[in-house]
Each structure stands twice: as structure tokens, then as C-alpha cells.
């Protein structure tokens, strides 16, 4: 899919000049050299990425794969089954909310924190202290994130205790085990775990913006907000867009954290595509249906990847 998209784009390129095509031919003679340097990458990705993808797509068109030796070809039946499954529909809905919530919050927090951390009025020492604290969530593996937050969000845990002391609530909220709050709770956990990477990228982006732009804006009498909206944001736009796309891809496939905190429950309130896929495979041994749901997720990701790679190219 991505290949055709890229080819299609190629056709829109301006026609190559004579000189360029001559150079290409000259290089083509030596094209064994680039191929040599690329061969480890190509072999690895071919064996461990392209073949598995091919297999999983193949599985999705068969019946009872893996558990029987001679699966039957069923065409698109698995796709119909999965798409009509009410649990899958709930999973899609929850995944969308979870992803949207996470991505928006990641960007807002990432941008906000990086602007604050980059503030010129902050001393060198306090800057590095705060940067260190702000980056902390990033160093945790998902298993730790899940355990840590299960403890914090326990109905008689520390968060509820603090909220009760502050008079914000009267009885402990069952953050992860109430159908009303569970999706919000796992989204908050994901926001916590994921914003630092965006913050760091934004920070890097902001530091890459030329100081002259701000200086001339200051001379023109622009306020802080004006220079933020007229300089910082437009300059960061390419990073913001590509980070958002990557984040959507990463977040929509989240599995481990949700599995270890709520397991998709209570009821179906945190059921997501990743959980659905895992349950089909390891709870019901429906490896074909699991593959189907995985392929649907894959199609969505490829769609976004194509957009992403087009944007990348435009920036080059």
C-alpha cells in the first residue's frame, strides 16, 4: 500500500533533467555499493518484518489457523465477523477516545512544559533540575507504570487520601474499577508515561529556532503570546505534525499497560483493539480472528504512515 502511494507521488515530480538522468545511470553502475551497505538492514527487515506481516495477512483469510493443520480459506468472513462483533466496535470507540485524549494531552503538555523549561528567566540550575523531574516518567517500563499506578489509584490509596484531605471528594473513588472512571484513569496513566518524549522533541525544536526571529519580534514590540503564536508554533509545526502521527500510531496499539491495570474492564469500559486482539488469541484461541483485528489495526497504521512519510518528504 505504501509502495503504491510513494510511486504515485513520484509521478507528480517534475521531469528529471537530462543531466540528472545521466548521473543516475552512472551511479546505477555502482549501485552494488549502496546495496552492500543496506543489505543487513534489508535482510533483517525482510525476514523479521515483511514475512510476519505477510503471514498475519494470510492468517486473516483462513479459518482456525495455528490450532488446526489444514486451515480453510474463508475469504473475508473473518473481517465480517470482527467488524460486526459489538465488543470490537466498543474497542474501536474506546481506542479512539484513549488515543485522542492521550495525543492531545501529550502535545499540550509537551509544548507547555518545553516552553516553560526553555524560559530565559529560568536559571541554569533550576532548569536542569526541572528538566530531570519532568523527564522521570519516561524512564519507566510499562510493567512498572502499571504497578505504580495501580497502587496510587487504589480505592484506599494515596491519591484518594489526598483528595479526601483536600475536601475534593468524600469517599474514595474506584478509579480503575468503576466503569465511569476507568477509561479516564488509563488515559491519564498513558499521558503521564508518554508526554516526556514529546516534551524533549519540542524542547529540541524550540532550541533550533533562530534567536533572531524572537529578537526582531521584540524590537517590533510583539508580546510574549504574539511571538509564541507567530514564531514558536509555526516553526514547530512540522515536529508537531509528525509527532502527532507517530503518537497516534503508538497509542492506538497500546496493550500492555491497559492489560496490566484493568484487563479491558470493568465491563467493557477499557476494551481496546490491542486487548481485543490478545483476548482473541490467548483467551479464545481464535488466532484467525486475532490476526484479522491485527490487520485492521495495521491498515489504519499504514494509512497514517503514508501520510507521515509524505510529510517527511515534503520537509526534505
Amino acid at each position: 500500500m505504501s509502495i503504491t502511494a510513494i510511486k504515485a507521488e513520484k509521478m507528480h515530480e517534475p521531469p528529471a533533467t537530462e543531466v540528472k538522468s545521466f548521473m543516475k545511470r552512472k551511479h546505477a553502475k555502482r549501485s552494488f555499493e549502496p546495496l552492500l551497505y543496506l543489505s543487513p538492514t534489508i535482510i533483517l527487515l525482510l525476514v523479521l518484518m515483511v514475512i510476519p506481516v505477510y503471514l498475519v495477512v494470510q492468517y486473516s483469510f483462513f479459518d482456525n489457523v495455528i490450532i488446526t493443520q489444514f486451515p480453510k480459506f474463508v475469504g473475508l468472513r473473518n473481517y465480517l465477523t470482527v467488524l460486526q462483533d459489538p465488543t470490537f466496535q466498543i474497542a474501536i470507540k474506546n481506542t479512539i477516545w484513549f488515543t485522542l485524549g492521550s495525543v492531545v494531552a501529550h502535545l499540550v503538555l509537551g509544548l507547555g512544559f518545553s516552553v516553560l523549561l526553555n524560559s530565559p528567566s529560568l536559571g541554569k540550575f533550576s532548569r536542569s533540575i526541572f528538566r530531570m523531574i519532568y523527564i522521570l516518567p519516561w524512564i519507566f517500563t510499562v510493567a512498572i507504570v502499571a504497578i505504580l499506578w495501580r497502587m496510587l489509584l487504589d480505592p484506599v490509596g494515596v491519591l484518594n487520601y489526598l483528595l479526601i484531605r483536600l475536601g475534593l471528594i468524600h469517599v474514595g473513588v474506584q478509579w480503575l474499577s468503576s466503569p465511569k472512571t476507568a477509561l479516564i484513569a488509563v488515559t491519564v496513566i498513558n499521558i503521564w508515561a508518554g508526554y516526556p518524549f514529546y516534551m524533549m522533541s519540542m524542547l529540541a525544536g524550540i532550541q533550533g529556532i533562530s534567536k533572531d526571529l524572537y529578537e526582531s519580534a521584540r524590537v517590533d514590540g510583539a508580546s510574549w503570546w504574539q511571538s509564541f503564536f507567530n514564531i514558536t508554533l509555526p516553526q514547530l509545526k512540522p515536529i508537531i505534525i509528525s509527532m502527532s502521527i507517530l503518537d497516534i500510531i503508538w497509542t492506538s496499539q497500546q496493550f500492555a499497560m491497559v492489560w496490566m491495570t484493568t484487563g479491558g474492564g470493568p465491563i467493557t469500559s477499557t476494551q481496546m483493539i490491542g486487548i481485543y486482539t490478545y483476548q482473541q488469541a490467548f483467551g479464545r484461541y481464535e488466532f484467525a480472528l486475532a490476526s484479522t483485528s491485527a490487520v485492521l489495526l495495521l491498515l489504519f497504521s499504514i494509512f497514517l504512515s503514508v501520510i507521515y512519510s509524505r510529510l517527511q518528504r515534503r520537509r526534505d
Partner: protein
Amino acid sequence: MRKVQQRARRRQKTLVILALIPGALFAGFPVLWMFSNSFKSNSDIFAYPPKLFSKTFSWSAYSAIFGDSEKVRFFINSYGIAIAVTILTLLVSIPAAYTFSRFEFRFKKTLNGIIISLQGIPPITLMIPYFALIVKLHFYNTYQGLILTYMVFTLPYAIIMLTGYFNTLPRELDEAVKIDGGNAMTALWKVLVPIAIPGIVTVGIYNFMICWNEFLFALTLTKTNEMRTVPVGIQLLMGQHAYKWNEMMAMSALGCLPVLVLFLFFQRYFVGGLTSGSVKA
């Protein structure tokens, strides 16, 4: 006049710090709580009202982990695998990124496009066929299996980032080497790599983090406890019959310390590397 300016600046600094505090609490409190609980006794963790510092401060959870050779092995495995993947990924991705940055060849755009879109493949998609494949390759429950798997996840990003980084380095550098009679690889390893260190460190840290944190494949592609990594080890502690919260917290604390140290050590490089990488990539 100067005094007024100074006062204004100080007021601005106070405002910025005040604005940073809530975020720092959000980011740091869970971490503080983790460390504090790792020093408590198991029953103190359940005390209500909860206390940040308990009277029964003890290192017993840590000594329990260090005294258990199985758990120490989790750490050794995690380190070994993460370091191996980091080095191997760099060895493979540096020439690849260099090729994308400096050579013109057929299918360059196609290949580049494929690598970019491979980033978008959800690992969970690959989980099902992976069993079969890794087993067929006789890599089930081996270090090689995990290392190769992780390389597949780290390579695309590493190549994209490094290509962007090499693009920012002037071509005259490698041309000079060629004039002196060196080939492309000399130019790459002798000239470009040394000046690309910030970018390479960034990519390296990123690779290390991916391996150190990976859970799903570490769980499914290994079988015996001596092959398990830290994330899976923590989850195994969780699956035992009753929780030893203090030990789980101690193991979590130990699990994040190396990354913390790594980060502190390379912090300067890291931001620098991201600057050129993500802006230009």
C-alpha cells in the same frame, strides 16, 4: 531603571517556577511514592492514612532482590540484551543511514518509504506469526531471538533519525576523504561518525530504552526464568500468590536507575541530538 528591570525579571522567574511546580508534582510524585514504598514493610504500605516516610525504614526489599540470583539474572539479561541491540543497531543503521544520505541509487525513495512506514507496524500484529517464525529459526527462548526482534523495532527509527543527522553534515567532509584516496566507509567511520556523536548517542539511548522497556515480546518469546528480562520479572512478581509490594517497588526502582544514570550522563548530547535529528529528519 535597572532595579525595576531586575525586579521584573525576578518576578518572571518566580512565576515560571510556580507554573512548573504542578507539572513537577504530576511527573515526580509517583516516582517519589515508588521509592518511599520500596523502603517500607509490606504492612506499612497498607497503612491508612498513607505515610510518605515510615518509621520502619529498611533495605530488606532490596536485599531480598539482590539475594535472589533469579532476580539478579533478570537485570543481567536486560542489560545484556539492551546493550547488544544498541550496538548492533548502530552498526547496521549507520552505514544504511549514510547510504540514504549520500548515495543516489535505484529504488532509494521506495526503500526509504518502506522503512518509514515499517515504523507504523503495530508490534502486536507481529506477535502471532512471530512465535512460529522464531521457533522455526530455533531462536525461541534465546538471547538471539530477543536481540533480533528488538533490532527490527529499533532499526527503522534509527535509520530515519541518522539519515536526517547525516544530511545536516556538509558533503565536503567526505569528498575530502575521497580526494585523499579513501573510500566511502573510511569517510563514514573516520570523519562523519566522530562528528555525528550527539546524534548517534541520542539514537543509542533511544534504542536502549526501547529494549529495556519492551514487555510483550520478552514475555512471549522466552520461556524459562533465566531468559526473562526486568519488565517480565516484575510482572512475574505480580503474579505470585500475594503481592510483595515493597519488593515490586524495589525492583521497579532498581529497574529505572540505570536509565536515569544513563540519561543524566548523556543529557547534553541527548537534547543536542534531538535538535538536529527531529528538526531535520
